[in-house]
């Protein structure tokens, strides 16, 4: 709302003065700012807050069915073990996936830093590296799913190793997380191309890189909890 609108209609300046829907619009669009942050960043945080609730609901329902089942819960350490050169290494693939995601979080943090330094080439390179690591993660997850479905016979409604809920919660939680990673890869590639084209230089702001970074770090954050509760517990 600008000065002329206020001059035409002074009642808009006082919240509550305008009744009905028009008043709602007036209140929400009034010249007030709660957060001393770019709007994109504040909105991304609000979105991530809502996503926190979504993932916590998934993990909580996983906890609930795992507590309440009378069947033995499959041992994740064995289910996700890999045989490398005859040696049986527990959780190997998951450990590698964890390190891949952490590495991508590091390159992302660097990209944000170089973005604020106006180093276009390095920012774009780091963003592409982050996206590539994200793709690697999704690829390994596809491998993990294939192995689980084809070789171990895990289905959302049952599996040969124990509690039927193992499959449903596993596919739901890791699937939703993988979807976030995939969306993040697309997001990062778009931002990286805009960095390269000088879009943010013309705009005069590199916050978009930081906002994309917030999303990417959140994906890593969720994995920290999935790793702890689903794979290690």
């Amino acid at each position, binding site marked *: 709302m600008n000065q002329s609108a206020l001059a035409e209609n002074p009642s808009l300046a006082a919240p509550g003065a305008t009744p009905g829907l028009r008043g709602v619009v007036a209140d929400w669009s009034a010249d007030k700012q709660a957060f001393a*942050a770019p709007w994109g960043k504040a909105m991304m945080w609000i979105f991530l*807050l809502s996503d926190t609730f979504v993932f916590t609901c998934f993990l909580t329902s996983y906890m609930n069915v795992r507590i309440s089942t009378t069947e033995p819960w499959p041992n994740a*350490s064995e289910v996700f073990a890999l045989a490398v050169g005859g040696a049986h290494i527990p959780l190997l693939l998951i450990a590698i996936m964890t390190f891949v995601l952490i590495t991508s979080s590091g390159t*992302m943090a660097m990209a944000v830093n170089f973005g*604020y330094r106006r180093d276009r080439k390095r920012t774009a390179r780091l963003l592409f590296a982050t996206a590539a690591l994200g793709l690697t993660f999704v690829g390994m997850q596809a491998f993990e799913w294939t192995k689980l479905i084809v070789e171990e016979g895990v289905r959302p409604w049952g599996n040969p190793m124990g509690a039927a809920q193992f499959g449903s919660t596993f596919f739901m939680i890791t699937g939703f997380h993988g979807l976030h990673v995939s969306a993040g890869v697309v997001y990062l590639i778009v931002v990286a191309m805009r960095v390269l084209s000088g879009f943010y230089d013309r705009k005069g702001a590199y*916050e978009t890189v930081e906002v994309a970074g917030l999303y990417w770090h959140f994906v890593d954050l969720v994995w920290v909890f999935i790793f702890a509760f689903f794979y290690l517990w």
Partner: protein
Amino acid sequence: MDRAVGDSYPEQHAQAHAGGQQHPIRIYLWIWGLLFVFSTLSYMVDYYQLQGVLRWTLIIVFMLAKATFIVAVFMHMAWERLALKLVILGPPLALLVLIALMAIEGDYTFLTRVASFVS
């Protein structure tokens, strides 16, 4: 407010606001390294098959440490203003109530199942 905070130059609002987050690379490299260390440690918990309370304590401690590092430094929460911190970090506390309720509910369901179906 036509010219939003995001449109100003970073030199300006690095001082005026917490909008532009500019910190020494050293901090990020440190946190990056720590994340690797803690991930390795939590993997070791499984590798050496620690069991019982020790296992759960270590898993939770390493998990919370990693989560704190990511949110505080990588997501710059440590440098944000208190207004934003409260809005983002406050509401998830309500989830603790949900988790507690569902844990109690899960126990109850388990006991009911044992009593009814398992002979």
